[in-house]
């Protein structure tokens, strides 16, 4: 594979834009958490851009890899899909990325995120890392893109293989794999892992997950008050798992949420419908929520999959094994990786726990891991919880979503498969189904 040119300009633009967003939110004083979110991202992108100047190794990784070991080794980690996404959004280079991937030979039915990643690297928008840690966490595309990016960059790499199911043999295998990751990073950095630092990173992660559980409890209030937090939670746990920043952020988020609950500061005056959503909505989904709240008294109570974990007991005397066990607990892996029985457990039980009237699945039709679960989720909810279910199909990387920070006015600017009118009609039919079920 040919060597790739890289221009620092793209990262400079990203840092500058993030800094601007942080300053804007700081000045607006609307939400301390909001400002903190952008501060953390700004610092993170600056660190990635300046890693080598700081004498640190830049180690990219595929989506959702547990990063505790990377933070413990004092490298600068970067989730490559998130970085590529942000760089393209800030620099308006999405279309060029997709075009380059197509010219390279990546089939158009492959997930847009993946094509975007490949194209972004081909276009020299993202810096070449000192190493890449790959994994199959999530799906085939994630596993394969890591392999491909390593060939494009011609950089050292290590692969973390997540087994299919959670059992003792799988934990042992993953633990052994994680040990191999430690050896790899020790070779890359020329220094040994500080096991106390790893324990500290694990403790940060554990604390972050504990704070998330507190937030999960706060979500049970009626009317529901915290629906707009899933994106923040997901991104912070995506980038800072094992870092103190995650704890700082989630403490602030928890405190803000508590204050909201104490004040009854919600988006609706009268809660008529409580809904659970499954999987991350596209950016225009937030506009849809606004309309649902305003017009129909709908509250979106909870999203149980994206940034949440099941519980487990971890033994600090065996940190790598603890990390392996934790990896299996992320509900998103369980949903995407399987087996499907776990999805049933993660969603159906939450329907009852959060006392919701119905479920909306934001069904990303280009995602092999998520969309293929749609039929089973629907049937299991009907059998296990007896509430109506509605799937809103979207393509996670529709045209409007690519413009970061654009003022997204009407839904129909960005909705992928339905016109604004059609989508609202469908939602209203769904709400009527819920109402009819109550009679």
């Amino acid at each position, binding site marked *: 594979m040919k060597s790739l040119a890289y221009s620092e300009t793209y990262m400079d633009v990203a840092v500058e834009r993030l800094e601007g967003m942080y300053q804007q939110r700081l000045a607006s004083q609307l939400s301390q958490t909001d400002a903190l979110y952008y501060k953390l991202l700004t610092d993170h992108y600056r660190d990635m851009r300046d890693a080598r100047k700081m004498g640190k190794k830049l180690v990219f990784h595929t989506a959702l890899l547990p990063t505790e070991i990377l933070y413990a080794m004092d490298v600068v980690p970067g989730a490559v899909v998130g970085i590529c996404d942000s760089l393209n959004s800030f620099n308006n280079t999405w279309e060029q990325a997709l075009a380059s991937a197509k010219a390279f030979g990546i089939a158009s*039915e492959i997930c847009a995120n993946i094509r975007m990643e490949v194209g972004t690297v081909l276009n020299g928008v993202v810096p070449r890392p000192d190493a890449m840690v790959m994994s*199959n966490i999530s799906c085939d595309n994630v*596993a394969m893109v890591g*392999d491909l990016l390593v060939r494009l960059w011609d950089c050292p790499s290590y692969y973390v*293989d997540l*087994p299919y199911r959670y059992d003792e043999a799988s934990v042992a295998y993953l633990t052994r794999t994680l040990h191999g990751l430690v050896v790899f990073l020790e070779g890359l950095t020329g220094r040994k892992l500080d096991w106390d630092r790893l324990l500290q990173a694990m403790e940060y992660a554990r604390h972050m997950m504990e704070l998330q559980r507190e937030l999960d409890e706060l979500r049970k209030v009626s009317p529901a008050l915290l629906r707009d937090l899933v994106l923040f939670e997901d991104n912070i746990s995506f980038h800072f798992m094992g870092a103190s920043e995650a704890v700082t952020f989630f403490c602030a988020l928890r405190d803000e949420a508590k204050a909201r609950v104490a004040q009854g500061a919600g988006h609706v005056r009268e809660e008529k419908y409580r809904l659970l959503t499954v999987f991350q909505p596209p950016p225009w989904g937030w506009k849809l929520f606004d309309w649902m709240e305003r017009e129909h008294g709908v509250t979106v109570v909870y999203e149980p999959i994206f940034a949440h974990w099941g519980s487990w007991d971890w033994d600090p005397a065996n940190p790598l094994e603890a990390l392996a066990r934790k990896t299996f607990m992320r509900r998103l892996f369980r949903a995407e990786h*399987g087996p499907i029985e776990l999805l049933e457990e993660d969603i159906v039980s939450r329907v009852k726990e959060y006392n919701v009237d119905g479920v909306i699945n934001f069904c990303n039709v280009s995602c092999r891991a998520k969309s293929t679960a749609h*039929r089973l989720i629907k*049937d299991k909810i009907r059998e296990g919880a007896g509430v109506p279910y509605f799937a809103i199909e979207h393509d996670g990387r529709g045209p409007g979503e690519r413009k970061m920070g654009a003022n997204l006015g009407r839904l129909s600017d960005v909705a992928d498969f339905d016109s604004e009118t059609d989508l609202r009609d469908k939602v209203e039919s769904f709400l009527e189904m819920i109402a009819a079920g109550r009679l």
Partner: protein
Amino acid sequence: MAATLIWARRMSDTLPTIETLREVNRSFPFTEPMRRWKGQGKHIVGWGCSYVPEEIISAADLLPVRITGDAREMPTDEGDAHLYTVVCSYVRTLLQLGLEGQYDFLDGFVTTASCDGMRRLRDMWKYYVTQTPLVHIITLPRQSSPAAEDFFLQEIQAFRRRLEEHFNLTITNDALRQSIRLYNHTRQLLRNLYELRKEPNPRLSGAEIFEVVNAGVRMPRGEFNDLLARLLQEARHSKAKRRQKLRLMISGSCLANPDFVAGIEAEGATVVVEDLCTGVRYWADLVEEDPGLDPMRALAKRYLHNIPCARTVGMADIRHERLLGLAKEYRVHGVVSAAMRSCSPHAMARPALREKFEDAGIPVLELNTEYGSGCAGPVALRARAFLEMLDPDSSLW
């Protein structure tokens, strides 16, 4: 029509054993050999991925059969409704057949967690194809490191225990060794058959070989071995020679329809080797029969270290080396990379594979296919154009 005339030969030219094997395929999915097996009161376990060690199933005196589609592109309305079209047509076709009840004769279904589609197929089969009493999935590492091999060994040991518990039987190591010998014999016979394809004018077409392998996974192994041995004799004594000088490799995952191969061959070539789950990857490496080696360890080694599938990670160099080796061994002039739409592993691995072949001076035609499709219309045109640019007298090898 032209394809049928060219590749099917005149009836008098068709080797008798090829016709016998075609007859087996015609009774898909519940073939006559399977019916006879069930008629003896025995059980059948279907498998969906070539990483499933059939030997374990066979050692339990169960009949392992590959779950496939038919030799045609079929409607998959129900399969699509359960799984989005974002997964490949192979998986949707299998689910379709399962939902239609065409695999109701199965006593078990096993696959591996080889890809997103297979994992969801297991989920869907378990919940919606309720006639199958046993559904099992084997975790499959994406690498062949010592740790991965140890883990895969544990997985297939768990599979063995599951079969024993479900069917209330014991799989002895002696039975396993016997089963390994049986399947190794198949691999050797297929290797011998493929040796004939290295000749300048092969006596068998790629489409005919396709039918042979298709039939082989739809009948008891001993019966197939006998037929293979007979076919070898017939082929060695056959005076038929293919006139087409151009020699091709097909690379991809699964193909069901011999007409796809026949259609390409009808444009003026012979497919001499296949990098497919149903081609060389099915038989390439033997299982070690060293009596000092635990047979389960031998199986884990063989299946994990076989020619790597495109789904593997960090093994592209090994895969490329083996495929280039095959291209040299079979003296191919070109490669047809036939990836199914929505097959992520092959789609993502294809650019690097193409580069390797082209750097070695071997042109590549990339086709996007649907499972079960033949070779007509645009596909045939592209094949023809590709063949026109190949030089049969090239001295690459």
